[in-house]
């Protein structure tokens, strides 16, 4: 159920990603880890890209990482972001390896740098969904 004044897109969890969004709601960041060799992987797949074995479990990660790269939006592509310009989208490399897209928050856009250390914080947007965003450590 969407909060009426929340105008941005709300993630639509798939069968595979449901555990990710259940965890963020409880303020935990989880990633799929191979049950055979322990390699983290993302996006989700049936088989491990490192060892080829099937099976994974969702494991809580540290929530720490660094900004692999980032961009600053000066125009909006969705009306929900019109009031937020300029905002920063970053590709965050987690300590455990996987890279995920998120927002870099808690810092002026012009201060963001590649390889800057960041940590997760959770932003509830609906009763069911909280977004993991990243701020400088």
């Amino acid at each position: 159920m969407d909060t009426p004044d929340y105008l941005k897109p709300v993630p639509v969890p798939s069968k595979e990603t449901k555990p990710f969004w259940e965890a963020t709601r409880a303020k935990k960041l989880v990633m799929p880890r191979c049950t055979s060799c322990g390699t983290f992987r993302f996006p989700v797949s049936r088989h491990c890209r490192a060892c080829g074995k099937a099976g994974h479990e969702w494991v809580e990660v540290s929530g720490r990482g660094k900004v692999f790269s980032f961009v600053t939006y000066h125009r909006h592509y969705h009306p929900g972001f019109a009031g937020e310009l300029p905002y920063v989208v970053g590709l965050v490399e987690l300590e455990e390896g996987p890279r995920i897209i998120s927002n870099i928050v808690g810092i002026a856009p012009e201060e963001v740098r590649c390889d800057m250390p960041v940590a997760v914080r959770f932003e509830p947007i609906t009763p069911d969904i909280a977004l993991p965003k990243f701020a400088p450590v």
Partner: protein
Amino acid sequence: MSGHPLADRYVIAGTGKSRLGKVPELSDLDLTEEAAYRALADAGLTVRDIDGLLVRGPDTSYTFHQELGERLGINARFSTTTCNGGASQILSVIQAAMAIEAGLCSTVLCGYGRSAWSRTHADESTRVRAQTRSEDMMAKEFGPEYGYFSAAATHALGARRHMHVYGTRREQLGAIATAFREHALKNPEAQMKKPLSLAEYLEARMIVDPFGLYDCSLRSDAAGAVIVTSRERARDRDCKPVLIKGFGTFNNLSGWFEGDNMIRTAAAESGKTAYAMAGVGPKDIDTAQIYDCFTYMVMVQLEDYGFCKKGEGGDFVASGALRPGGVLPTNTSGGQLSESHAEGMLQIVEGARQLQGIYGPDRQVKDAELCLVSGHGGNTVCHSSLILGRA
């Protein structure tokens, strides 16, 4: 000579472009048809000579070859819609050569057309939405909720990383935009008609930083087409064939976000394959037509193709190398940044025409014998390369 069995056996026998830019009276198929008939005329052929059709239209149309074939009123021994985004058009030429070699067909029309300007400017509401992709092709999670939209952003992530690792600067990206504009001013068909200075480039509004307005390619109503056939078959015709000397493909399917894929692209492996087939290297190339969806992609591909060392693309382009009369005149029609955007198809046409030697001294790359054409796309990970030679 590389001894590769397919090198120098096939040719581009003719090329065609539709009217370019803002052509609201023509649909995707109209544009493609217009380019196709012009390519046939250039090759000295008629539609009855075509027995292969390898084309592409909007992302959503996997039946584009069927629709075009119906309009042309032909059956085809070999026919499909090629779906590797901006890498598709060279891939069509490659598939054409392979299909002829395999005896599946003899003369292939390769083309692309899309009314991308009209599609997003039909009225104010479509202009504001300005999406060329349909809703059901959009990601549902891990992107839109953070405001991560547009091809500009995906490529800008690569540009930013390149800047961080190699010290690349925006004014170097600007040297690409201004060089292509210089070429466009010599091309009466080009969509962009006014000069572009580095100061204007830097002052333009930012879109997705590090990309500003002039880092982004055009939205165009545009189509291009070429005819691929064997060297022998082209001999009997009144045409100026251009040799297909080498080609290659590579696809970083593991993803743009994986490893260093965004600063060392699939062009590196694709290029190696094409150079080996043609038996040439980057120093032999006289002119290049490089897929320029965004300025940064030109810089990184020039490195990946070995025109300069990895990380030195910024200095290379800022030296004026790509300009008219430069060491590597590049995107000599103006490219997708300044001529028109037809997902790389127009760059195959331009590469072939430079080697047909049809231009006047103002626009003709002097003594051009070899041209490299690149195609990049399919959500940033697919690449194709084509090396053309004067017959």
